[in-house]
């Protein structure tokens, strides 16, 4: 870890806050991702994970604090598939590679679709796919982008364990090969431990960094290995405590808001 701190960070958030109306979604979050680092973000539902990714991707402006990606190219995979309904599946993936010549782009798109187990579904349209298949197309599209930083918002949420495992391997391979910096949101603690160099825990309303867990297990890891399970259990405990502690606060804040609005 110390090695990475010395290098310039890929993503750096300093005291970032985000207000929606009078709801404080993020409160002075400081976080950084080193080049080539894989950081997983955990937190209760509604704690501000997606908001954080949006801010990093430049889709929203923070209400306070500073965000820098130092001019790096950022790819993002949304919580919803966000495919273009007027394009075929293949064309959706090709959208990420406009710079390439037509033929190459096409071949690459097919390759990525094969990778997410959707070979042959290229000519279909998004509405002809199942939820999980759409998510995989979105995954293919985000991987197809030639980016330095990859932001992923629950990319494997709608997938079965088997497909998920296979895609974990693929993602890890690509991350390795391309030396990507990844910021990965998930609700699956094992998944976080399976993939991450570091797991960051966010609290709820307002979202703040509560704790960071470095994952120093050797790769390749297996989701169902005992080590992963042990660390996951530890993190889960912490998470539960966090959620429990903030449960009341959340209720109170929300109630107060209702009175005000």
């Amino acid at each position, binding site marked *: 870890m110390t090695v990475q701190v010395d290098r310039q960070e890929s993503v750096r958030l300093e005291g970032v806050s985000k207000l929606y109306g009078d709801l404080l979604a993020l409160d002075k979050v400081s976080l950084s991702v080193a080049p080539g680092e894989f950081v997983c973000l955990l937190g209760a539902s509604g704690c501000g994970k997606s908001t954080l990714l*949006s801010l990093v*991707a*430049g*889709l929203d402006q923070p209400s306070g604090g500073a965000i820098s990606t130092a001019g790096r*190219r*950022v*790819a*993002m995979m*949304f919580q*919803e598939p*966000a*495919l*273009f*309904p*007027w*394009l075929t599946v293949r064309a959706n993936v090709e*959208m*990420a590679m*406009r710079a390439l010549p037509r033929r190459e782009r096409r071949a690459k798109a097919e390759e990525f679709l094969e990778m997410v187990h959707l070979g042959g579904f290229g000519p279909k*349209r*998004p*509405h*002809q796919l199942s939820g999980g298949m759409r998510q995989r197309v979105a995954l293919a*599209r985000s991987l197809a*982008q030639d980016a330095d930083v990859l932001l992923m918002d629950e990319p494997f949420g709608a997938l079965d364990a088997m497909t998920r495992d296979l895609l974990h391997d693929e993602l890890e391979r690509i991350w390795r090969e391309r030396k990507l910096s990844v910021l990965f949101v998930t609700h699956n603690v094992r998944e976080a431990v399976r993939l991450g160099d570091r797991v960051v825990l966010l609290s709820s309303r307002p979202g703040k960094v509560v704790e960071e867990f470095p994952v120093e297990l050797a790769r390749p890891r297996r989701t169902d290995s005992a080590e992963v399970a042990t660390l996951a259990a530890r993190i889960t405990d912490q998470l539960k405590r966090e959620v429990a502690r903030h449960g009341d606060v959340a209720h109170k804040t929300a109630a107060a808001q209702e009175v005000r609005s």
Partner: protein
Amino acid sequence: MSTDTHAAQIAGLDALEIAEKRRGALAGRLWARVWPITLAVGIVLAIWQGVVWAGFWEPWVFAGPSEVFPVLFERLGTGEFWQAVGVTMRRAVTGFAAAMLIGLIVGALVSRVKVLRAAFGSLITGLQTMPSIAWFPLAILLFKLSESAITFVVILGAAPSIANGLITGVDYTPPLLLRAGHVLGFRRVQLYWHVILPASLPSFLAGLKQGWAFAWRSLMAGEIVVIIANQPSLGEQLHYARELADSAGLLATMIVVLMIGIVIDLLFEAGDNALRRRWGLRADLR
């Protein structure tokens, strides 16, 4: 394994059935499309004839089908009629094409550039409400008694509508898709071209349809302001039929205008259906 072959068999059988269905379907679909129209036409004709037979009005005041159809059929036999249709359609299509281009550009600029929108956004609807006759003096000033004067009025009629259609489409582009486009690196023109425009297509198409109606109406008015020698036109026919209080002639021309409107609508419908099929907007849960 046996399940697989079985599945293949089922798929095969079903495929057969589908092919069968499709063949039957074409005739069936055509029939399904034709009979309601026929019925509708029949009903309209029956009411019309009924009113005429009831004898509220003298026949030269309100002609019945038995007077109008001979007139119509006689016209259909003359070269002049087809020339008139040709001239009017040519004008409509050129004017509409120009309006589309202008509407697209204006709509694109106004919908995306905040200052322009604040400055000129409301002007577009303002222009849309301006009746064609108000433009004639200016049209004649600018283009004399040429066909360009007609085109000018047509464009002023249709372009605001088309621009407004596009603007609505842009305004209602799902933010998620905008965000996706942004993340894929699209900015400004590219974002517009690759994301906003396709997402706005349904609304743009609706605007085009309205724009066509405006263009056509403006054209009908414009064709009597500038009458060009040896260029008979539908607008002229309509006007003179009214001018001469020629009820049968007027109704015959109205039928022609209606028919053309319906044909154009069918074209738009085809485009619309293609779009909806691609987008997966089916009509089964009605």
